[in-house]
């Protein structure tokens, strides 16, 4: 497994945002994406996940070249949690499991959601919501994880759980890109720092 970008340029709303980024990640590589606000971290992650305008350069996952198949290989967790407030925590996870496969019990266990599994999602606190969103990580087996500020609103214990989950995913040979302004409890072996103009520093 190898995810590589070659002089990748992306736009957002017609405006060029990220320009000429090149990187290459093999199985087990985790890349920390950092840079000031507005430097294009979200734009880059969305582009890889298949929701962006790629205006130049190339993006490959093995032999797949920015197609639907590439985006199906990615698990993108963005700023939103994809939770239905009317459904309970368990019902939400049930749906994802029946949609994309995976084991509901394992997902509930991952961020210790069992105690709140029957609470309607509309009654969750910000961090609880984020935990439900992140429990997808324990659900779907996808070769690439794209995490956009995954630790937002998480308390210390959950942040640690997240780091462990990331670590064991990398150990199993996953590829991971995480955008964040703060450090995780583990260190990722690659780094990409974006500058103001969306170019690598």
């Amino acid at each position, binding site marked *: 497994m190898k995810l590589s970008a070659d002089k990748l340029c992306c736009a957002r*709303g*017609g*405006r060029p945002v990220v320009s000429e980024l090149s990187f290459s990640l093999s199985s087990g590589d985790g890349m920390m994406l950092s840079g*000031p*606000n*507005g*430097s294009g971290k979200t734009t880059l992650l969305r582009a890889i996940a298949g929701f962006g*305008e790629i205006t130049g350069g190339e993006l490959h996952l093995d032999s797949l070249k920015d197609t639907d198949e590439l985006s199906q290989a990615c698990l993108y967790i963005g700023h939103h949690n994809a939770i239905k407030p009317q459904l309970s925590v368990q019902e939400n996870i049930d749906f994802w499991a029946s949609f994309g496969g995976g084991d509901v019990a394992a997902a509930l266990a991952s961020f210790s959601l069992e105690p709140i599994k029957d609470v309607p999602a509309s009654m969750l606190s910000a961090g609880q919501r984020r935990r439900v969103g992140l429990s997808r990580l324990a659900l779907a087996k996808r070769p690439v994880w794209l995490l956009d500020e995954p630790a937002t609103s998480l308390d210390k214990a959950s942040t640690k759980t997240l780091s462990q989950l990331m670590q064991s995913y990398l150990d199993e040979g996953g590829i991971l890109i995480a955008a964040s302004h703060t450090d995780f409890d583990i260190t990722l072996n690659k780094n990409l720092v974006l500058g*103001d*103009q969306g170019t690598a520093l």
Partner: protein
Amino acid sequence: MFRYANPTRFMALTSVLLPWTIALTVVSFAAGLYGGLFTAPPDYQQGETVRIMFVHVPAAWMAMAAYSFMALASLVAIVWKHPLADVAAKSAAPIGACFTFLALVTGSLWGKPMWGAWWVWDARLTSMLILFFLYLGYIAIWQTIEEPIRAGRIAAILAMVGFINIPIIKFSVEWWNSLHQSASIIKVGGPSIHISILWPLLVMITAYTLLFAVLLMLSMRSEVLKRRIRSIRIAKVEGFG
């Protein structure tokens, strides 16, 4: 956006073409109006009111033609992602809406003496009204979505979906046998109207088509310029971060 050479070539080409097309438009309008108002005989049934035809029929045709053009340009924009196709479709919409409006107004001016009412809920008239609404919806899409690329795609899909209405307008007269005149120019076995009416009508149709071309070129040019300004403006706020 404008890394493409195309729009630049388009600007150069149209700046040459425009004066000629404008001249031709004026000439053919003069000829068509002269023929329509003076040489064509008054109708034995309708009297002088028949002359509204020379304004009405071409407007109605162009209303449909502009929509078809828009749908076609949208298809090109979606399939080949040609940047000018997008601009062309966007620019054609308000012009087409104006032609539609003109056809509606002249039609209802004509309807008063002919049918005794400004407006009747006849199939052709109504489907024309719906065409007008489709134009409005299309224009609203462009106005509501700020990002030009996304707006372009969405509008293009809408234009192609709405194209279904064109055959409905065209054949509504036969399907619902309405009050309105059925096709007399384009039909199996050749046109069924007299040559003295036919030629001014054809000239007027040419004139309207040329007018459409002129307006289209003008508004495409201004759209291209607007997009350039937009990209310059965006480039200026570029370094924000």
